[in-house]
């Protein structure tokens, strides 16, 4: 079922290792970083909007 004979064969990718793993590596990196950036941006945006909201309610109360 498994196509490869050994782990080193799998890593070598028939001599195309650099290109294949380079492609998969960059893709994995981007797909890991993008959600982190998005959720950090969400947290800072929510914190900013909350500050704004608090400031507004304070002003109307006075």
């Amino acid at each position: 079922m498994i196509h490869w004979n050994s782990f080193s064969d799998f890593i070598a990718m028939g001599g195309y290792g650099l290109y294949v793993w380079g492609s998969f590596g960059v893709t994995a990196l981007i797909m890991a970083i993008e959600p982190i950036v998005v959720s950090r941006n969400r947290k800072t945006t929510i914190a900013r909007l909350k500050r704004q909201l608090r400031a507004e309610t304070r002003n109307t109360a006075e």
Partner: protein
Amino acid sequence: MKDRFNLYRFASPATFYPLAGALIPYFVAVSVVFGLAGLWLGMLVAPTDFQQGEGYRIIFIHVPASWMSMFIYLVMAGWAAIGLAFNTRLSGMMAQALAPTGALMAFLSLLTGALWGKPMWGAWWVWDARLTSELILLFLYIGYMALTAAIDDARRADKAGGLLLLVGVVNIPIIYFSVKWWNTLHQGSSVNLAKSSMATTMLWGMLLMAMCFWMYSIAVALMRARTIMLERECHTDWARAELLGNTEGAGK
């Protein structure tokens, strides 16, 4: 008929926001499952290509990324058309939420294409119709993001960005049919409804990876859309209630 399920209800940010929040974990989970299955089939089970050796395995991310880069653009253009025709609030937010992911997919398509082209053609880049039109797609994404970011008023930014998206949509069939219309160095399509040129395990590995990319894109775009909704609707009651009850931004 009064209780009929009404799809239009979800066009309102107030109802879409919690729905999107509830759906995101499912899209992430499904994406991971499809990704693991696709990697297992593509990287461990699928046989060697008789022409390209093991180098062809780049296809398992190159094709899904390229498909997504085109599909996301079409979805954005669809939202733009709805937004311009019916003046709906949600459309512009969805288009903006999708743009960075679409740009990243176009970038990944070009990068993995270069890494595939070098060993197979001997060149990282050639000014071939397929490659050039995909590069234009990346520029369209960047142009859309720059244009909407440059206009302060959100609704006007949506309109201007929407027009750009609709004009640029002509590029999508050009990318798709470029390998048929012109004599390109880029190989023809691997998947054909009548007859596929690929082994079954290769084809399934690629389709599973495409589903993984698809679900990933939906999850990230929904995350982004929720933040945009909150920001743009922060004057409304639902957004205020959401902000007051929200603990995600705590500690900042």
